[in-house]
């Protein structure tokens, strides 16, 4: 089950990162922890792909990074959502909602009803 959950996650990782950052700027670890906590550790972020994803988002101008200091006084790279990122998040959420709804419909439909 873990495998399928992570595969499934790959397509939605960007969306979740953007969503996470929509609350407050944070660092990569913060994003990973947030997603884990939100989903009661059901979804474990595949950390190997989190950072490339972050960098790609940065490259696309959806998020920006700057170096800051954590509450433990440790230097860390903080990501922040840009205006473009906010727009992208809204668009993706709509798309995702429609997609998820469609998938759900398929799963709920009984074979004989057609």
């Amino acid at each position: 089950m873990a495998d399928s959950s992570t595969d499934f996650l790959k397509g939605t990782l960007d969306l979740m990162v953007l969503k996470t950052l929509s609350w407050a700027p944070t660092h990569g670890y913060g994003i990973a922890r947030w997603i884990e906590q939100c989903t009661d550790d059901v979804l474990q972020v595949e950390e190997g792909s989190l950072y490339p994803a972050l960098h790609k988002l940065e490259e696309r101008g959806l998020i920006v990074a700057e170096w800051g200091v954590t509450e433990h006084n440790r230097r860390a790279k903080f990501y922040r959502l840009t205006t473009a990122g906010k727009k992208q998040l809204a668009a993706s959420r709509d798309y995702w909602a429609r997609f998820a709804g469609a998938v759900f419909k398929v799963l709920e439909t009984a074979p004989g009803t057609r």
Partner: protein
Amino acid sequence: MWRRYLHFWGPRAEADVDDELAFHIEMRARDYMARGLSAADARRAATRRLGDLDAARAECIAITARRERRMTRAQLIDAFVHDVRYAVRTLGRQKGWTVVAIATLALGIGANTAVFSVVNALVLNPLPYPNADRVAMVYLEPTEGNSTGMRVFVAPQPRVVRLWKEHARSFEALEPFRASDRAMRTSDGTSSTVRAAFVLPSFASFTGARPMMGRAFTDVDLAEGGRVALLSEPFWRSRFGADSAVIGKAITLDREMYTVIGIMPPSYRLPRLSETVSDVWLPLDVREEGLGLSVIARLRPNVTPAVAASELDSVYARSALAKDDHGDFKAKLSLPSQLVDFRDSLVMLSAAVALVLLIACGNVAHLLLARTAARQRELAVRAVLGASRTRIVRQLLTESLLLGAAGCVGGLLVGWVGLNALVALRPDSLPELAAAHIDGATLAVTAGLAALTSLAVGALGALHALRHSAHDALKAGTLGLSQSRRQRRLRSLLVVSEMAVSTVLLVGATLLVRSIAHLQSIDPGFEPRGLYAIQVALPVDSYATRAARRAFIGQLAERIRSAPGVAAVTVAAGAPPSRNWMIGALQVDGQPAPATGATAFVDYNGVDANYFRVMGIPLLEGTTLTDTSASSRQGLVNAGFVRKHWPGQPAVGRRFRVVYDGKEEWNTIVGVVGDAFTGGLTAEAGTPMVYVKSTDLFEPAVIIRAAAGADPVPGIRSLITQADPALAPPTISNVENAMQRSVAGPRFTMVLLVAFTVLALVLAAIGLYGVMAFAVAQQTREIGIRIALGATQTGIARSVLLRGVVLACVGAGLGLLGARWGTKVLEHMLYGVGRFDAASFAIGALVLLGAAVLACLVPMRRAVSVDPLIAIRAD
């Protein structure tokens, strides 16, 4: 430097990624530890959880690098814009400084722009024809025996040109032409001179020009007798009011009727060297023998002028003509640029303006150094605030580039004004100067010079700024001590170089000034004042034989003799300033006969008995011509002739002849006259010359001496019109003015060099002033202490002056050495002064020292007036 800047991001991208990932593992491990794992286990677990760390790292780095490369580009542009804005602000803050720097650059660059546009028009790009790089003038040169000291062009005879055209394979086109004046009758019965040019029908395709209206010549025109004419566009506009109805109408030139068949654009033109503009074009018939022709040719690709010339020679040598003709000539091809008389002067002036630019650069370098010094604190503060060295250097370079750009614009302006002045002041002997203009090439060269200048100057300033770390500058106040010494050395070096370069120019200019002074103080050996030379163009058709021409001129001279205001009249082969030569080798009594066919040149004039009296040339020995019959074999020689052949001995009674075909008769010398500069003031003094009776002259000149205070010109003009109303108005020149004009070319060169030298000297003096003023400002405190300790004002003044003079002396010394070598370019431009003329060298050095002393005066005054109390307290 730029490379370093581009790589700047590389290492940091990797470090950032590593840092980010390390932070993640650290945080995760901290979590695990909170759940009870040992530190080592927590770390292992965290690392495992991250998965393939290397792959993630590599991917992140790749993305970041890609993004940052893109960003760097954007940032560079951004930084450049920022640098420029900042530079504009800084330069704007010190307006005086900026204006001086830009003006200096503009003057230096402008002088180069002006001279380059002349070089470009006259030397680099003299012909407007297609494939101009393969176009050459073709003429004959005597193989040996050219004793004139000038380049001698022999125009090939039509039969030779026909031979060449038929057999030579080196040419795409071989275009003979001839230019001569014609008298045009106008409707009101008066005549005016038009400049006519005779060309072949193929000349149109040679020039690539098409008729603006009507048609060009065809071979049919020639076959039908060639009574057709083309008008040049400017002539058509000025004389026929650009009336298109002129086509098909007839015009009368020297009594011949020609039908106008077309209007040609200005690109249909002869090479500039032979004729500036032609008014009327007539078909050339190379089947007719007669006067020699000028030839311009386009070589086939990859054929060198030397190869083409030797082909022409062998074509000629194989022909039947070679057996019959006399004379020993060989074909020569010259690129038109090589034929520009002004070429030597241009080379010299180009060098001079380059030196001026060098001095201007030196001055701007000074200014930048002084400013860098003053800005040391600002730069240091910027460095401490995180500006990298690269960034500061870039900033300084941007500033100097900006100065360069402004200097470029200013230079173009100065160049444009200078060029217009130059063209307006051009002497009559350089009509082709009018073609000089500022074009794309000039713009490119100006921009290139400006870029080069500002980079060189900026690099010097930047290097200098780099050497001093920010730390030093902040610590040492406005200027570190060691640094000030190094700066001072650099500035001294600059100012010494400027002084040296100025000295070279000063010596050169002085040499030219002295040379011109010599020319103008020459006793011409005759009395040019009140002398007029009259040249009447006799059409060959109406005055076919030499005898007829001579007879007409003789009768004309008789009528002029009684004209009002005329004191005396004589007829001669040539009127001053002009030289005539007999072709052949001179043989004097007692010498063996020279080989026939030699193409030596003997200066001569064909004269009447009263020539010497009219001209005011003293008779030193014997008499003038006494036998005035056509068969007279009497002759006179000048003193230079006697000096050369029979020094210290009487010459009267001896004989000479000029041998060409061996059949010449001897002339017996009846008198010796003084040396006269009848060939113009630039001719060599005392060149041997012979005078014989003026028979058989093709284009004789009438020379008259006017009665004191009288102006005989209008009377003579009307006399000539009465004698033959069809003649074009004669050329009547005032010999005194014409003699002055014979030095106009060299004088023009002199004026230009003097102007550039003055410019150089002023710039160099400003440079010295700057160094001295800066030194005094820096040593205010030291001077104050010295005054406080009892130094006298004289003492202080002396020390300042001494330093300036020492710098100037070192510069002058180096400059004199440089001038010994550099005046080589003047070698052929000097008359009566050697290129090592001690007086010129001394004057050059003295003028420089004088300027140096003047430049030191203000800094000296400032040093003397230092108030010790204020000075010592200042820092």
